[in-house]
């Protein structure tokens, strides 16, 4: 499954890029599983995703929980808790 990923704030800084397209291996069904797989992709990813519990996610620009299914997603974004306003 080909998936566009976007990263914001310190997740972006740690990964070292704002976005990328990845080939997700079969068997990864949820956002939480996707984060675990990302964390295994190298030192910078491990640094970004080692505390996955505090990272928020959005599928196609809508907030989702970590147990959300990624099937059919066009774009998944990962970012820290928001601090706007």
């Amino acid at each position, binding site marked *: 499954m080909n998936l566009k990923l976007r990263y914001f704030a310190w997740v972006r800084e740690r990964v070292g890029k704002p976005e990328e397209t990845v080939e997700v291996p079969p068997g990864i069904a949820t956002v939480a599983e996707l984060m675990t797989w990302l964390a295994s992709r190298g030192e910078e990813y491990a640094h970004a995703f080692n505390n996955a519990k505090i990272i928020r996610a959005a599928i196609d620009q809508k907030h989702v929980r970590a147990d959300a299914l990624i099937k059919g997603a066009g774009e998944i974004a990962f970012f*820290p808790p928001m601090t706007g306003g």
Partner: protein
Amino acid sequence: MKVTVRLQSEPFDAAVEVARLASGRTDIGALVTFTGVCRGSEDGEPIAALTLEHYPGMAESEIERHVAEANKRWPLLGVTVVHRYGRIEPGENIVLVVTASSHRQEAFAAAEFLMDYLKTYAPFWKQVDKADGKSWVDAKAIDDTAAERWSVSRGGHEAAE
């Protein structure tokens, strides 16, 4: 309801935005204007500037979603939200929420609701630029608590009691 949601890097003029929302109308009885401003210090240390990062597209749609939710809860006549991104120096404005209704209670409540939700759900991230370097602002538990008090499930539960 007249809705304006805008993201921009340049400062806004709150008076101009209020006039745009309300001029020529006689149905509005209450206009509440909230402006969030960049403080010159964070945790007691002076700051040079804030830099706001955002998720283009999602930021607008999240704000619009919350404006629609506010309009379901209160009889509003207009809402304007302007949120800045990029570099913002102390004393400059960051965010504007204007709510218009027939009576003040609805306008006050909707403005507070929108600000509480923006802080927790609108995809913006603040980075603070201090003498010892740049760092990301941590989300505050108090902001989550402020947003949660408006939650539908809690409100519904209380209404049922």
